[in-house]
């Protein structure tokens, strides 16, 4: 969070907004998007390369639904004593099933997502983390998702 902020220019912003909506499946997809944005194909590719290298975008590509491939996601939370926090974070992050992990300001101060290829692996991973850390892992699987896509900027 202390890393410098990337200041996108107007064209970067249009690219970021447009590519959150989707990316075409055709032989020259960058050319198609570029022509919609009124810029050159190589300019679009160079800007995406820069956005990626500067960390302004974390991913560019298909977003898979683990559940649709037979896998599962589960949001989990733990109340980790302050003195142990970094050591526990290291243990939790070492699990490949932990897709992301955030520290949050709350008694439940560690929030992570388990992503596994089979639903039963969620319980196995959560149980293993409980055993290794001696802390309860609260499970918050999604019951319903109100999914409308992604938008960050105007």
């Amino acid at each position, binding site marked *: 969070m202390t890393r410098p902020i990337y200041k996108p220019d107007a064209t970067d912003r249009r690219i970021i907004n447009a590519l959150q*909506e989707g990316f075409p499946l055709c032989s020259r997809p960058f050319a198609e998007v570029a022509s919609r944005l009124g810029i050159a194909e190589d300019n679009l590719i160079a800007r995406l390369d820069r956005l990626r290298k500067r960390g302004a975008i974390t991913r560019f590509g298909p977003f898979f639904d683990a559940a649709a*491939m037979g896998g599962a996601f589960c949001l989990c939370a733990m109340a980790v004593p302050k003195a142990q926090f970094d050591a526990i974070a290291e243990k939790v992050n070492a699990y490949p099933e932990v897709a992301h992990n955030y520290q949050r300001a709350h008694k439940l101060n560690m929030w992570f997502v388990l992503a596994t290829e089979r639903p039963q692996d969620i319980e196995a991973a959560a149980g293993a983390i409980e055993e290794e850390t001696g802390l309860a892992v609260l499970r918050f699987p999604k019951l319903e998702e109100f999914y409308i896509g992604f938008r960050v900027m105007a």
Partner: protein
Amino acid sequence: MTIDATDRRIVEATQAGLPLSPTPYAEIAASLGLEEDEVIDRLAALQARGVIRRIGIAPNHYRLGMVANGMTVWDVDDRSASRLGVQVGNLDFVSHCYLRPRALPVWPYNLFAMVHGTNRAQVEDKRAKIAALLGSACRESDTLYSTRILKKTGLRLGREGSA
């Protein structure tokens, strides 16, 4: 729903991202010994089946200056939670919105809505809009600000058989 072995190879080849070349699908096809058309057709079929939710970018909120990240959580009357969840999810500043089980007594909240802003005041502003929308159907709420990203990798499929 399952995916076949060729689909799986395409998933493995693209889950870290698409190549930034004028013909990204042709490059993936070449790396897998497939035809470009087959890769495009299979990706389209995966998208139609919902295995691929979308193709595009994931912006890094922090790096773009949206450094305040609040997970707003709400204890919403079960009878109206689905209906109100749709409305909250439709707010243009809510990036993710889910209904989840409560964990009583420590966790009374069932509706989760992720809100980002350039500072906490912006997040509070947006949070107030959600509160207004939920009205009396919401009994209690909280906002959990993220203070540190500890890990962020996304889903990674292992090689078939090794997962």
